[in-house]
């Protein structure tokens, strides 16, 4: 089958938002952070993802505000380009092609038109050797410019971008393992050493410059912070040491006024040191994962910390957390399957240690964590702590079964099976039953029956038994609540089960015991038949769906994919392929199989009824794929192309070993996305709040009405007004702005005004002019400050008479005046 080009693998969210320090826009309303090959813009107030700046083709490694225009942002990427964006509108203004992979970007206010970039020096990737170069940005009107004017500032610098900082004036320091290197551009360079004792772990880890004073703060591996001063006088430099962190200081940041120094490390405590009074410090503890970066807004009102658990915390200057932007939490490993919560359609997987995270794929947003283990997690290496290893939802999403386990390395295994009921009132899962000794050995596989009426859980464990669990069957507990208890214990020749699976209608249960598959009837617990296709232990097992429900698929460790016909109990077909993950689509007959061969993973999508694959994608990624899930689409695509049809009703997500969440996207889908994103980018200055949407829709409608010169415009005005009323009434009261604000709009909606339209037209034309001017300016990269929110400004309303008068005056010919002036000496 020919590989079609209109399906491509995309990195869909879940990328690291903590790779680089987030930046806060100068008006403190937006937080920008890198996320994969995107730059994401979040609102600081609502923590909502507003939009993303899309355009880089590889990992974005650094962002920084344009010092000449605070509404613009530079971003650099491994793809070798620096892009200048208008981050409010999400418009790419310019692309500078540097030509080599870039790893960090800095700007200095004293040097306009110059960027400082980290580039890799060595040609081979083994030698990690980085260089700080300054790049002169050429002035040119073109969209894409090559910037070749590079000059090296310092070489042999650390890869870690937090080891470079720019301070007042033209000071730049970079530090390697042991040396700080300060260079005053073209003046002098000077190095400091911090090794006075052998064996002391005082290697530098990070650095920050005071904004007004000549003071450099360095963080050290042993948790000390040193403030260096007086460093231009040779040898007479001096430093003071402060020590609070018990482990390496990850990051340092001065507040813009320089009154405080913020530091963070693995303790996940944000420490605020008062500059000058060094032992006065404040703490903000329990922020989650270890702090990787800290940044402060230019007015000093907001701080942002990014954490190792893929999180950005927005903190007010009064040391109160006011927002959390949580990306997909990536722990050390995803032990559970990828699952879809049937209710919220959220992706469920391991999150924080001991938690399940619910992640909205649609909005690329972390929804919430469900604490499964309910024990304090201790952040220390080498401890054996409980982890969630298995989880399963029933088909309605009203039950969740989890298995947590401890003692993987040691012999004394400890595990619990927990069942969680969905509570409608609190809209969350509530612990229903904890089964302490469900099995005598580790639970291998777990699944819910998929029938609507009765829910049944089957667990298969290494104690060569599988157990069926039912709700409320236990007569001993005379309580209202229905707890879960064991209903049936099954085994087969003392063999260890490897997998279990219910058929689509729950009429059959397949349990694989090593090389043998046994088929059971859950109603009578009678073994119906056994299927066997040696050699190889069964690795994966699934029933076909819909029209193919008579088929049972299985993969073995001996690289065999088999399909049995359950009606005939015979092998329908088998093929030799090393399948690492077999994932059936619950909404179609399709089954996806990931096969890992010679260092890359291939994907086959097929129907069990026919051994010919519907779709093949060679080289999906270079790592092994262990987890995959089909996510139902909210609205099905109606693509007719044969190769993309399998993606019509659901979307396939998969997780690589590098913890990248990838998906397949089709061309039509991308088109739709693009158009919707364009729609989103209409208003530039208002954060996306419910009220904004309300207003925005309203304005759109008005604009539509205005711009359409068709007879549609003479739609009765009454409807427009009623729409507004409806919107007003339907918006919850607590998100409505003050009545005084709404009043004029509300009243306006009732007016039938012709002048309003003409005025609007004029305004529009003005706006267009402005826009074109703007573009010109931007192209010239004069980077003038744009009058912000000009669109929103309420133009002073003139009375009709006044307006007419003005127009008349404007149209009057004043050329005679020119003559008069000329004639005068």
């Amino acid at each position, binding site marked *: 089958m020919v590989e079609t080009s209109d399906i491509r693998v995309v990195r869909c969210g879940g990328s690291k938002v903590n790779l680089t320090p987030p930046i806060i826009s100068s008006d403190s309303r937006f937080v920008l952070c890198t996320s994969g090959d995107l730059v994401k813009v979040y609102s600081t107030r609502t923590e909502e993802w507003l939009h993303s700046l899309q355009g880089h083709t590889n990992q974005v490694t650094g962002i920084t505000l344009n010092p000449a225009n605070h509404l613009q942002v530079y971003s650099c990427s491994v793809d070798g380009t620096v892009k200048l964006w208008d981050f409010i509108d999400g418009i790419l203004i310019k692309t500078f092609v540097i030509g080599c992979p870039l790893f960090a970007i800095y700007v200095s206010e004293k040097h306009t038109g110059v960027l400082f970039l980290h580039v890799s020096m060595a040609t081979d990737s083994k030698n990690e050797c980085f260089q700080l170069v300054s790049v002169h940005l050429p002035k040119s009107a073109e969209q894409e410019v090559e910037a070749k004017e590079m000059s090296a500032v310092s070489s042999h610098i650390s890869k870690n971008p937090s080891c470079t900082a720019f301070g*007042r004036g033209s000071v730049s320091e970079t530090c390697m393992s042991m040396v700080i290197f300060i260079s005053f551009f073209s003046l002098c360079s000077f190095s400091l050493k911090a090794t006075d004792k052998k064996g002391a772990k005082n290697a530098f880890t990070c650095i920050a410059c005071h904004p*007004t*004073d*000549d*003071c450099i703060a360095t963080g050290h591996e042993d948790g000390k912070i040193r403030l260096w*001063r*007086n*460093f*231009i006088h040779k*040898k*007479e*430099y*001096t*430093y*003071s*040491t402060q020590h609070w962190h*018990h482990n390496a200081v990850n990051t340092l940041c001065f507040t813009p006024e320089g009154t405080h120094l913020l530091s963070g490390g693995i303790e996940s405590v944000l420490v605020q040191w008062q500059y*000058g*009074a*060094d*032992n*006065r410090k404040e703490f903000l503890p329990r922020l989650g994962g270890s702090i990787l970066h800290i940044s402060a807004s230019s007015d000093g009102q907001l701080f942002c910390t990014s954490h190792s658990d893929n999180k950005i915390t927005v903190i007010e200057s009064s040391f109160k957390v006011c927002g959390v932007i949580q990306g997909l939490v990536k722990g050390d490993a995803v032990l559970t399957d990828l699952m879809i919560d049937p209710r919220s359609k959220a992706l469920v997987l391991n999150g924080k240690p001991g938690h399940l995270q619910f992640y909205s794929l649609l909005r690329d947003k972390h929804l919430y964590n469900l604490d499964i283990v309910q024990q304090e997690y201790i952040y220390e290496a080498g401890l054996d702590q409980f982890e969630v290893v298995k989880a399963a939802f029933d088909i309605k999403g009203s039950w969740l079964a989890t298995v947590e386990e401890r003692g993987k390395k040691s012999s004394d295994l400890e595990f619990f099976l927990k069942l969680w009921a969905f509570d409608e009132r609190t809209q969350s899962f509530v612990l229903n039953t904890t089964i302490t000794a469900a099995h005598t050995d580790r639970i291998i596989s777990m699944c819910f029956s998929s029938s609507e009426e009765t829910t049944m859980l089957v667990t298969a464990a290494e104690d060569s038994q599988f157990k069926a669990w039912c709700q409320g069957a236990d007569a001993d507990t005379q309580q209202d609540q229905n707890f879960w208890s064991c209903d049936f214990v099954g085994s087969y020749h003392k063999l260890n089960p490897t997998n279990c699976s219910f058929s689509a209608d729950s009429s059959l249960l397949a349990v694989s015991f090593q090389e043998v598959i046994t088929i059971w009837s859950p109603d009578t617990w009678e073994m119906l038949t056994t299927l066997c296709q040696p050699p190889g232990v069964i690795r994966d097992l699934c029933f076909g769906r819909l029209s193919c429900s008579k088929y049972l698929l299985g993969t073995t460790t001996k690289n065999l994919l088999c399909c049995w016909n359950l009606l005939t109990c015979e092998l329908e077909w088998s093929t030799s392929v090393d399948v690492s993950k077999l994932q059936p689509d619950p909404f179609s007959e399709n089954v996806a199989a990931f096969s890992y061969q010679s260092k890359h993973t291939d994907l086959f999508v097929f129907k069990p009824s026919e051994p010919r694959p519907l779709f093949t994608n060679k080289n999906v990624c270079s790592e092994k794929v262990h987890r995959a899930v089909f996510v139902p689409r909210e609205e099905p695509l109606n693509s007719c192309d044969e190769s993309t049809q399998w993606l019509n009703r659901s979307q396939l997500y998969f997780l690589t070993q590098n913890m990248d969440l990838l998906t397949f996207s089709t061309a039509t889908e991308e088109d739709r996305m693009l158009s919707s994103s364009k729609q989103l980018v209409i208003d530039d200055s208002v954060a996306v709040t419910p009220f904004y949407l309300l207003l925005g829709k309203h304005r759109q409608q008005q604009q539509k009405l205005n711009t359409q010169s068709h007879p549609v415009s003479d739609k009765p005005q009454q409807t427009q007004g009623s729409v507004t009323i409806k919107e007003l009434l339907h918006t919850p009261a607590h998100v409505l702005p003050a009545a005084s604000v709404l009043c004029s709009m509300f009243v306006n909606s009732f007016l039938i005004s012709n002048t309003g339209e003409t005025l609007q037209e004029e305004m529009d034309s003005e706006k267009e002019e402005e826009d074109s001017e703007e573009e010109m300016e931007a192209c010239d990269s004069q980077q003038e400050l744009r009058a912000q929110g000009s669109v929103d400004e309420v133009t002073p309303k003139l009375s009709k008479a006044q307006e007419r008068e003005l127009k008349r005056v404007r149209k009057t010919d004043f050329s005679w005046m020119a003559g008069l002036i000329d004639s005068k000496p």
Partner: protein
Amino acid sequence: MGEFKVHRVRFFDYMPSGIRALAFNRDIERIAVARMDGSVEVFHCSDRFFQEKIIPGREQCGIEGLSWVGERLFSAGLNGGITEYDLTNQKVKYTVDAYGGPIWTIAGNQQGTHLAVGCEDGTVKLFEVNEDKIQFERNLDRQKSRIISLSWHPSGSKIAAGMMDMIQIFNVETGHSVHRLLADRGVGTSRSKECVVWSVVYLSDGTIISGDSVGMVKLWDDQTGTLIKSHNVTKCDVLALSVSQNEDSLVAGTSEGTVVQFQFISMVLGKDDKEWVRTRTFKNHTHDIRAVAEITTAVVSGGMDAQLVVRPLLDKVEVRSAASALRKIHFPHRRLVSCARKSGLMLFQYPGHLELWRLGESEGKGEDDIHLFVKRNPEKLLHLKVKGEDHIRCSAVSPCGEWIVYSTASSLRLYRLHCDNNNVSITKVLQISTELSANQLCFSSDSSHLFSASTQSSVHLVSLSQSGCKFVGTLKPKSGERTIGIRESSKIIPASEDGKWLASANSDHEVHIYNLQTRKAHCTVPVYSSAVTAMGIHPTTNCLFMMYADQQMCEYSIEQKQYTDWSRMVQRKGLHRFWMERDTPCLNVMFNPQHPSHVILHDTYMLCIIDQSLPLPDDKTQFYNQLTLKSLPEEQRKSHSHAFKVCKTFKDILCVELMSDQSLVVVERPLEDVASQLPAPIKQKKFAT
């Protein structure tokens, strides 16, 4: 290299006394140290902090403050008196009572005209410094509480006085208080607990810096009397402050044992608006730091743990060398132990008493080669208490063990020891009054004479016999050339084995050699820039071997009146780097009669034998080469060996002496033992404990 039977003596319970005050004199580069027992020591800062002078204290004499006025040293104490010291003769010159109750602090102005003392009764008393005495001038306005600390403005017109809860600024001319700066009591401490301003420093730009019991270092403006800035340095007290001469660096000693440095730095490079910024923290002490002194190249601090720590400021040091290394001075740079070489007796000198011990004996065979069984335990024969209030300055026991002599500031006493079996008794033979009080005492090797080094570089001779003793005469250096000027008192006097020669060194670095038969001065060794720390006359060659404070060594032939060839070779080739980097002076020079070419030296950390017949090491050769030599075969050893054999088996050595039976006595005083006898330090929370 010769094996010795070693008496490892650890029963000398010497306790150094805590340091109470420091005073640095920039002009003569001396630092004066006052200890809790009332003794005052003078260290030479540019001569590797060699302890030049020790003025022993008295009972009930707590010194609270020290101050240099010119080259004169004054102290004041809780007994209410101001004392001036006679540094040339190392004794108290006079004491003047201030009549204000206990004195807490003393400060001299920079002009050298006046001394101010702060008294318990709340007065600041001004004394005029006259040429030979001090004269009470007047009182400044009397305050309600005691004056804890004082500091003169460099111009001499104002005085800042630290008291309970406040600082007063006095105009010296009118004697009235100009400003009252209130130091607030600490946050979280009880209201009733007063804030003691332990230390004030008055800078020339009008800034007053105070350190108080709340743990704050505060900066005040004397014009407006307002607080400019305060630094919270510690949770405990800030006990001492000291500012550098150019007023760009300040050190504060705290009761946690840390020294905190502040520097006057421009916040923006290249601009002039400077600020006091807290910079480094040094932690070298375990106990309270009672005194700090910022000398230009180093910070000197001393406290309750009795050690004097010299912490170099590397940014001020031009060249890093052994002279600019961190230095901790635990023990006095002179001997507190004397041994009767022939009879196996040891005399331990404590401030207030003497102890005589008989060394133990062993069977001569041990379970292994290293440790021998003790047959007879060492026993304490005598505990001799000092008559009077003065502390002992020096003491000696004669080689035969029959005579004991000690000297205080006021008198010299000679005792005869009768020792028949277990019965020990002494009889006082001689008591000489002030005039003959000695700085150093020494017996001739045949115990027939006592030499007593005294004032003006003179040495008194006393002949001893069974019947009694007789003052024989005085040896004086040839003073024909110099008519004026007081000579420094002599210090170190070794006499030669055959009783013919006597050498004496004084703190002017002069070494005089006398002929004992003619009782005339024989010659003078050329003066070297560094002080002599130890010397000895070789028994056979009659060469004077001298060790200097800067670790140089010289050998001077007495008969030929010139340096020996070996000495010249040492000077020419230079000594090994490791030898020069040692930080304690050599305290004794001994000769092994069986190996005439061997010289035995020791300092606090090591014992060294110099074989003058072997080549000298240069900087490339391995200095501590005993282990390598051991591993080499016999024939190669010769080519690799050099003159210095260093033994580091013993630590914290107070004295090493070679007995006449070829055994060594090594008196150790482990620092851990000293530390264990100190009072408990301030409890500090340590992370992860």
